[in-house]
């Protein structure tokens, strides 16, 4: 198994105590930082797919994301300027009136693991705050809205409308327990994902699409 494969396997297995050493070994062996980063991004892709398929559960996803984050810390000084693998910035948050953050945090982790820079707005975020964050941050390509309550779905619609009406060149992806593909289309969102794993896949598709 090559060092890159080993790094990838360690992220997939969530080896948080060993990953830093393995990334260092891969660097010492002469592997490019960008290639090591890509192997970790690929690992998170696999994690996302396995989560969507119900083969792994939230702790496995979290521990993999933590492993990746620890690996990236070792890589950072070796990456030229900003990460060359960056897919752009994603502004993410839970819509106004809703304090649920677990799903939103998982999606943020998966998007980060797949190469997005994350601006996490937290919970109970007003449409105006989402719009301002999309305007004020650099290279925003995606706005991700989470909502777990049927009562706050109108706020999701209002947020999508505000962003779309602003003319900003960003895609909007939505998700959360009561949200469906049909509802996402009805309110004018560009994409929908039923879970954190498929959110990362869908987000990449929207950006590259």
């Amino acid at each position: 198994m090559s060092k890159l494969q080993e790094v990838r396997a360690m992220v997939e297995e969530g080896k948080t105590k060993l990953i830093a050493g393995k990334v260092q070994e891969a660097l010492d062996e002469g592997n490019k930082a960008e290639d090591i980063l890509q192997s970790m991004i690929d690992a998170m892709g696999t994690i996302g797919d396995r989560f969507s398929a119900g083969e792994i559960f939230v702790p496995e996803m979290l521990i993999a994301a933590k492993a990746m984050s620890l690996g990236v810390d070792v890589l950072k000084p070796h990456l030229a300027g900003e990460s060359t693998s960056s897919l752009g910035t994603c502004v993410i948050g839970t819509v106004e009136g809703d304090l649920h953050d677990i799903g939103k945090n998982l999606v943020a982790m998966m998007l980060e693991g797949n190469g997005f820079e994350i601006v996490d707005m937290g919970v109970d975020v007003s449409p105006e705050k989402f719009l301002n964050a999309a305007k004020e941050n650099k290279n925003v390509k995606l706005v991700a809205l989470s909502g777990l309550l049927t009562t706050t779905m109108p706020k999701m619609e209002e947020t999508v409308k505000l962003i779309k009406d602003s003319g900003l060149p960003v895609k909007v992806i939505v998700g959360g327990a009561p949200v469906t593909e049909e509802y996402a289309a009805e309110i004018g969102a560009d994409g929908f994902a039923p879970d954190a794993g498929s959110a990362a896949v869908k987000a990449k598709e929207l950006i590259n699409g």
Partner: protein
Amino acid sequence: MLTKKQNLMEVMKGGNPDRFVNQYEFMEIIMEMPMLKGVFLEPGTEGKNAWGVYYKWPEGHIGQMPVHGEHTVIKDITEWKKYVKAPSVKFSDEEWAAAVEHANKVDRNDQFVTAPYFGGMFEMCHNLMGMENALIAFYEEPELMHELIEFITEYELAYAKEVIDHIRPDAIFHHDDWGTQRNSFLSPEMFKEFFVEPYKKVYGFYKDNGVELIVHHCDSYAANLVPYMIEMGIDIWQGCMTTNNIPELIKQYGGQITFMGGIDSGVVDFPGWNQEIVEREVEKACQNGKLYFIPSLTQGLNISSFPGVYEAVSEAIDRMSKKMF
């Protein structure tokens, strides 16, 4: 006509009920128990509960939520003993008086005097630590998580003893949400490793001390955990969402456990609810069958978030009973 209690027993043992058990009708929940003081905030307020967990109920929201960040109780799992202080379960007779009076008024031939418990072992772990920290700790510090759960178990046992001594409950209504609407939070293997034995201890203690019925609330997907629910001693799983494929569960486990739910609160209980939605969802739920199933909102109490929904669901279930029995 069977009493509410008799009718429930017929449903649970696969006998001859004369109607659907209608939502929570068989449980008289004793909410006056002194340890419940401060568990629920008033809308528009925020503050700590007896364990030090900080909750917020913003005005206009439908419930309270734990808040972490600077408020997190366990800042470092390796030092959990430093941070976690269990509240006392000892209260004076005066403080128990309202609960005792309520329990004494219940006709125990018709209903189960029911002691509630909110925030079970899994919820307690993530309420104290924050969800992400708790879930990671199951991997990184399993021994410490076992210790923490043992500590919570001891508290639950002490709570159980007080409840039994004061109101002699016939049933326990115990909350602990174990999943999302799509899956359990933990894999079944991890769930077994951490939670099955502690729950067997607590539910076994209640059963050994005269409690006839263990009702466990978990309004999520948890179909993959049903064998463990049975092993723990759960008689009724309340909050069983439609995502669990209830007919299949009844087929596989009916006789060992009864499923209560089938009417997802999120679908029915919202500001724009109407009679048509209620009738549709209740009718669908009642098609799950007459045995080992109780049609009910998945909400964890005999209330709804929006006025009139709980009552409308109850009336619709009565109509379905007239049609189907």
